[in-house]
């Protein structure tokens, strides 16, 4: 990995925002053991089922989600709250924003 790429990765990782405690979500979707692109397809489907301001939690053990979910939030204008690292999976939290698609 070149220096520029490493710095870029580091900057990306700063967006990961790990949480010390899990938080209470308005809706939860469990996609543990599902691989790419189920995490993104499921978020797109489930985010439609909550209203602006509500929080969606995604349970997944797919490592690619560490990059993809914060990135998806940036692209779609939703708030990426953070990640709680459970024993064998991650809990991602997203707040649906008014202007989101």
């Amino acid at each position, binding site marked *: 990995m070149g220096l520029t790429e490493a710095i870029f990765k580091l900057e990306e990782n700063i967006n990961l925002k790990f949480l010390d405690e899990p938080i209470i979500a308005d809706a939860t979707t*469990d*996609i*543990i*053991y*599902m*691989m790419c*692109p*189920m995490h993104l*397809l499921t978020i797109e489907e489930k985010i439609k089922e909550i209203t602006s301001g509500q929080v969606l939690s995604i349970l997944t053990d797919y490592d690619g989600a560490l990059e993809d979910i914060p990135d998806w939030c940036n692209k779609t204008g939703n708030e990426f709250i953070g990640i709680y690292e459970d024993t*064998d999976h991650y809990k991602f939290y997203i707040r649906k924003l008014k202007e989101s698609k």
Partner: protein
Amino acid sequence: MKTIYLDHVATNPLHPEVLDAMLPYFKEHYGNPLSVYESGVKAREAIEDARERTASLVNAKAKEIIFTASGAEANNFALKGIAYASQSKGKHIIISKIEHHSILNTARFLEKSGFAVTYLPVDKNGIVNPADVEKAIIKETILISIIHASPEIGTIQPIAEIARIAKQKGVIFHTDAVASVGNIPVDVQSLGVDMLTFAAHQFYGPKGAAALYVKEGIRIVPLIYGGIQEGGRRAGTENVPAIVGMGKAAELTKSDLQKRIDHVKPLRDKLIENTLKIDKVILTGHPENRLPNHASFVVEYIEGEAMMLLLAAKGIYAASGSACSSKALKASPVIISIGIPAHLAQGSVVFTLGEETTDDDINYFNETFPQVIKRLREISPFAKGWEGLEDSTCTARK
């Protein structure tokens, strides 16, 4: 020569209405269900419609149905999927000794991968004792899988009772219901099972379509990774015509099941009554608690395969039990498990009726089968007895 098909447990002919439902998905609507244009959208809609109908047959929700290519695949998926999903909780699995090979061999594979398996015995009628299940459960037990009805001996297991025990102990419970769905009412809610396997060709649907019911909320590791088909749980471009056929067959079975049972049961009873009049013929499986279209016997002194060949020459098609006995000339583990000695197990035969079986068919069978047995016993080296093996015969069971 007229042929009489008495091997409905092996497979069934396609119902004409099922074929009609499938044909457009070979021709007009051949698109990939993931495609966004019309033929793909039609295929996608047809799969979801079939999922509703298939779920309805076993009283499940559509989202709890995962289509697979066969009952064997669904059974592999259930065992491996739960074993890998739950291994952090424990590595112990319980099955019975009379499971289908798709369960037995998967369990053996898992043993090689570090899981421990308990193989529960059955009684002389092929019944698993629920108390044995309860005793076998340990802290590390993560899965119990017991066959609903045996295709070899027809016995129906006390699944609801076993499922209740599994639930009390917090263990996931799967049943292989390939032989039962289509022959008796099967309801995942009243049975209380977490997972259930069933296959379309057992109820006049096509081969190549089956399903695994997975209760909502249960985590399972996919058997096949790839695309997003079946919610990411079973990748691979769907066999759309077969899935459509399964949906149609499920719909027809739901409405016709009682009629089918009322048709086959008296004919089956007549077949059993007549066959048991023959000397040294034993009914295998439970005398009452068995599939309504199923008759299975052990005939002393002669081989199942020989009976099959002579019956086939007379136009009657049936089976001699599992692939162990028919292909490998090895005693079937199911027959051995119910206490039949190995030398008698070779005389195992299975007759299974269907909706096209007539009273005339059974009359013809009842005339022909005793003649076949008589002819084979005339040339059998054991016709005068088992020559030293008498102590181990099971004539006492009669």
